[in-house]
């Protein structure tokens, strides 16, 4: 931060702050040749995965902007999105109208869950990430109670393809044929044999514009202030708690839409665990992109998605070819995603402590020159 860093220090700083993405680029470069995938296959895979995941990962930007760290509670939004999809499949609303209706249904649910999550996080200031992580599990319990026991019975869901044979509760895998890849094929484009889902990219571009515009609004500015120093923001008259709740609500609603886009690309909904997966993978992706708990930009999102999913695709094959155990690759993939989050969090916490000490030293300012010449 301070100007008088020598070149080597600047280099060192660069490596420390981007340790995670660099480490990742190295791993992927090693794994790609070993996995034996063709270039076109990988490029096609990356493009589809960018279309599928970036909306979800982008939804993580707002809570970081407001200083609430990684929103492990995005799982709440994912659940709301899935409930929306369950209803439109039951009513068999297909095509783009079906997806739009699913999003409309998920919005009020997300807003409610967002407000709940926001107010809980306000009561656990300083421990936001741990609390949102466990709140995700808690709401998951409620979600299972609603989807596995109420739907079909109390909540009218009729289509036999959805409801379990016992008459209530939703099956754990649902085919979303009516809406499969509807956004992706909205504006089909094929270059060589690589098809690019322009429709989804258009929606993602819209969200990026919204985020860029949002940062320029007063609300965005308030959030940035709160992230830096809650006390100063409060004394300047900014409603801190309300602003934090708004940032969580927006993030949850966006996560809901992101999950709908993710599932329309996948084509099938695994009712009881796809939302957990998206939570972990999105957070791992944004961290790999170089984001930290207190600072994240749109490039972090896209770099992160590409790097994470490249590793995700490549590692099982690499594991298989290297040690002949496909399962190894599977575990390797999980190990990398959790390991990355752990390393990124540790690095960040460690750097924050170091910055605090640095700040203290700069505060000493006047004293520093006063250091007695020779310590006897």
């Amino acid at each position, binding site marked *: 931060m301070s100007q008088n860093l020598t070149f080597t220090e600047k280099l060192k700083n660069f490596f420390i702050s981007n340790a995670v993405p660099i480490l990742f680029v190295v791993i992927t470069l090693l794994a790609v040749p070993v996995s034996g995938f063709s270039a076109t296959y990988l490029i096609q895979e990356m493009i589809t995965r960018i279309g599928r995941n970036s909306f979800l990962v982008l939804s993580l930007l707002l809570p970081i902007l407001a200083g609430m760290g990684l929103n492990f509670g995005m799982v709440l939004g994912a659940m709301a999105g899935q409930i929306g999809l369950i209803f439109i499949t039951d009513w068999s609303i297909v095509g783009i109208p079906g997806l739009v209706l699913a999003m409309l249904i998920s919005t009020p649910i997300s807003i409610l869950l967002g407000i709940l999550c926001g107010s809980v996080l306000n009561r656990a200031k300083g421990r936001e990430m741990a609390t949102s992580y*466990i709140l995700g599990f808690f709401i998951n319990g409620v979600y299972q109670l609603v989807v596995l026991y109420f739907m079909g019975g109390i909540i009218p869901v009729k289509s036999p393809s959805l409801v379990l044979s016992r008459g209530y509760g939703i099956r754990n895998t649902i085919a979303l044929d009516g809406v499969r890849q509807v956004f992706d094929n909205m504006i089909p484009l094929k270059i060589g044999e690589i098809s690019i889902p322009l429709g989804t990219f258009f929606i993602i571009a819209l969200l990026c514009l919204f985020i860029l515009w949002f940062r320029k609004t007063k609300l965005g500015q308030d959030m940035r202030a709160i992230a830096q120093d809650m006390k100063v923001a409060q004394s300047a008259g900014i409603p801190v708690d309300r602003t934090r709740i708004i940032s969580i609500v927006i993030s949850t609603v966006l996560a809901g839409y992101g999950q709908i886009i993710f599932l329309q690309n996948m084509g099938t909904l695994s009712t009881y665990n796809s939302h957990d997966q998206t939570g972990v993978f999105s957070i791992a992706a944004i961290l790999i992109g170089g984001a930290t708990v207190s600072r994240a930009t749109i490039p972090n999102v896209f770099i992160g998605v590409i790097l994470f999913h490249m590793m995700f695709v490549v590692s099982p094959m690499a594991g298989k070819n290297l040690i002949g155990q496909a399962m190894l690759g599977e575990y390797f993939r999980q190990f990398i995603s959790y390991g990355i989050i752990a390393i990124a*969090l540790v690095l960040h916490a460690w750097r924050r402590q170091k910055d605090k000490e640095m700040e203290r030293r700069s505060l000493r300012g006047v004293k520093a020159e006063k250091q007695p010449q020779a310590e006897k």
Partner: protein
Amino acid sequence: MNRLRQFINKAGWPRVIIGFFLLSLFVAAPFAKVSLAVSLKDTLVRFGMNGVLVLSMVPMVQSGCGLNFGLPLGVISGLLGAVTTMEMGITGVMGFITAIILSCAIAAVLGWGYGKMLNRVKGEEMVISTYVGLSSVMFMCMMWLVLPFKSPAMVWGYGGSGLRTTITLEGYWFNIIDNFLAIKIGDFTFPTGLFIFFAVMAFLVWAFFHTKTGTAMTAVGSNPDFARASGVDVNKMRTISVIISTVLGAVGILVYQQSYGFIQLYTSPLFMAFPAVAAILLGGASVHKATITNVIVGTILFQGILTMTPSVINNFLKTDLSEVIRIIVSNGMIVYALTRKTTKVKS
């Protein structure tokens, strides 16, 4: 009347609510054609199985490191110890003892490294310990496949490389402690060995907190600045508490397995952390203060619910709600505890 209110304030609302809920389950058991004796035995056995795991939470909470979501690290050391002992083919009581010794050694080393790391990230211990736990479990999954284990009882049938997901303890130290001095009354067997073992471990932890280091550790937990001003090395205390928690975690999993009958490898350690954290919070512990009574009360209540809900509720509502209730109760407890206003843990 106010004596009742006093009791409620002292015990705290969550314990009272869940206590009544559990009581109602026990009362309703006979109507649901569930034999009281069997469910009581189940609760007690499960108490013995999980008691030490919940006990392992106490040192870290007392020293201010917060709830130990990194329990899987302790569990891994336990698994490693057990599997290596089985590889060496030592069976029976000797096998169990060697497993404990090996696991404690591994746990001490892992705990030391884990403690050093936690000291660098004061204030964010919980999130980081969760992900350290997760990534180390995944790392071990790879190791189970790669490590050169040969004993037929453990290795996959065909290829012969990599360990099975669940390995039976038959012929090794299955129910070593459970059957020790077990008392049979009708169809109700009382697992005395389990209780003695738990009592010994609880006594050791209670005793530790009476020693000089134990007292210092409690002080570090409730007010780190006070401890530092009195010449206590805060970081050393925190590291010791992490080592003890990890070692207790390792012993805890060994106790759990010998009663359960199988060693569960691969991702099973992940599901150990939350029940233990929820149980100690249910027992009334806060994020920086936990006592042995919290452990005992919490484990009985929590395991009681786990055993009673499937049998009683299923008969009534004809649906298996127990899994959902477990998730809601355990995670609800943790969120409740995390939102309590506690003194800001200053580094």
